[in-house]
């Protein structure tokens, strides 16, 4: 099997791709998907370390993260729908009232 470094490197690469998506895209739905990608990258790091140490606590954390991700998507997409109803857009540049 591969060394742990490669698992953690893959996790870091996926996290960076998710960060880039969340920072550079303007479609709110794609931003939410990028955040899901970042959560997945963190899950991979948890599972990699659980595998290396033979400790199940990391896998339990992943279950918790998946639950939080599901809750986040439910609320986040509710916000998207409310925003679309009020502004007729899911472009984040159209909701800049609180921005300096």
């Amino acid at each position, binding site marked *: 099997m591969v060394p742990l470094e490669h698992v953690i*490197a893959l996790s870091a690469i996926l996290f960076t791709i998710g960060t880039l998506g969340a920072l*550079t*895209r303007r479609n709110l739905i794609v931003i939410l998907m990028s955040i*899901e990608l970042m959560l997945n990258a963190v899950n*991979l790091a948890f599972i990699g370390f659980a*595998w290396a*140490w033979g400790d199940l606590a990391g*896998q339990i954390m992943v279950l918790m993260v998946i639950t939080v991700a599901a809750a986040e998507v*439910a609320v986040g997409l509710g916000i998207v729908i409310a925003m679309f109803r009020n502004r007729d857009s899911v472009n984040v540049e159209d909701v800049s009232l609180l921005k300096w």
Partner: protein
Amino acid sequence: MSVEALLFYVFALAAVGGALAMVMNVRNTVAAALSLVITMIALAGIYVLLHAHLIAVVQIMVYAGAIVVVFIFVVMLLNLRQDAFPPGRLRVFKWVGASGALWMLWRFLGALTPHMPAVQERAEGFGGYRQLGRVLFTDFVLPFEMTSLLLLAAIVGAVILAKRRIG
């Protein structure tokens, strides 16, 4: 190179490719969501290789099966037009943030190698539902119960947010 290592690299390539396709697809949000499914399924394969069998099943059922379906459902519900995202002005802060993220990845990958622990032996049945369930319902039973509260709050919040008129 063993079969497991080969499979790991194949799945890793699929995961990175799906992630890049998701982030760089500026035209079609549904296609971006389907690229995210590729990443999720590739990650589930990697979880199997890392002896996290239950998590791999949960990953496919919850992420690829439920979360992405909700995304696609919302995209189709909103019926976005192609011209909803006109080319914006140059965002300096955005690109500073993006290059900062890439610089951090570069530094992280450079500093990665010497600090990793050695891979230990695992007990029989590691990552199966039996062992995971025992740990979840003994050592981690309080976080598990608090999860139900979180889900309740999320359900109520989603219903309130998506409702047309309150009261």
